[in-house]
């Protein structure tokens, strides 16, 4: 199955990014394809390379980057939501790119399912 993923909450404050990451990993392990992961609302905060959690905590941004590198997953950050929260191209961790909301609608159209993580 081809899956689209929507992450609506930032890292650490909320479980959404953890759950989405675990879901994506499990889906890939089961042989599903991930069409795109789209980050919206505070979810855009998952994309910045300046994130530095304490060393004994999981590094969510690096986890996403690694997953993108290993499996060629398209990680898209909403431009309007990002700019509103001070996130720009030069701050993005590897594997993330900034684009428009059309990319979310497109993954809704192209994917067999769109799975939403957030409140």
């Amino acid at each position, binding site marked *: 199955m081809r899956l689209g993923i929507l992450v609506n909450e930032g890292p650490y404050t909320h479980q959404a990014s953890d759950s989405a990451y675990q879901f994506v990993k499990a889906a890939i392990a089961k042989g599903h394809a991930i069409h795109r992961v789209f980050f919206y609302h505070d979810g855009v905060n998952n994309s910045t390379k300046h994130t530095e959690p304490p060393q004994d905590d999981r590094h969510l941004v690096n986890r996403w980057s690694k997953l993108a590198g290993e499996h060629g997953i398209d990680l898209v950050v909403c*431009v309007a939501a990002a700019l509103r929260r001070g996130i720009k191209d030069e701050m993005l961790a590897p594997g993330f790119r900034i684009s*428009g*909301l*059309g990319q979310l*609608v497109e993954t809704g*159209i192209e994917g067999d399912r*769109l799975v939403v993580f*957030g409140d």
Partner: protein
Amino acid sequence: MSEFENDAGGESAGRIKKFMFVNRKAPYGTIYALEGLEVVLIAAAFDQDVSLAFVDDGVYQLAKGQQTKALEIKNFSPAYRALEGYDVEKLYAERESLEARGLAAEDLIVPVEVLSSTELAELMAVQDVVISS
């Protein structure tokens, strides 16, 4: 880089899916309602079969007489009236949510179809994409 980048001219051109946007949060206090409305407009620009459901505190998004001056936040409720211009005409409000908050269809700024939670669940079940915020 604009909101409309990668618009409907791409590989998705001509494909129409049923998108339902489920609005569950009050219009102010959090950004979900405002940013949620942005996605609705983009989905409409992609010529998708768009509908909106208002449940829980989401019914307040459509309440008449919103006054936000003291909050120093823009009252964006007139935007719901503009949806018709984007051919977004399927608006549903959950009866139980309205009643629990002392609201009726005539208290809302746009015409909606009032549905029970059971009817709304049936409608959700036939959607291709449900985006909730």
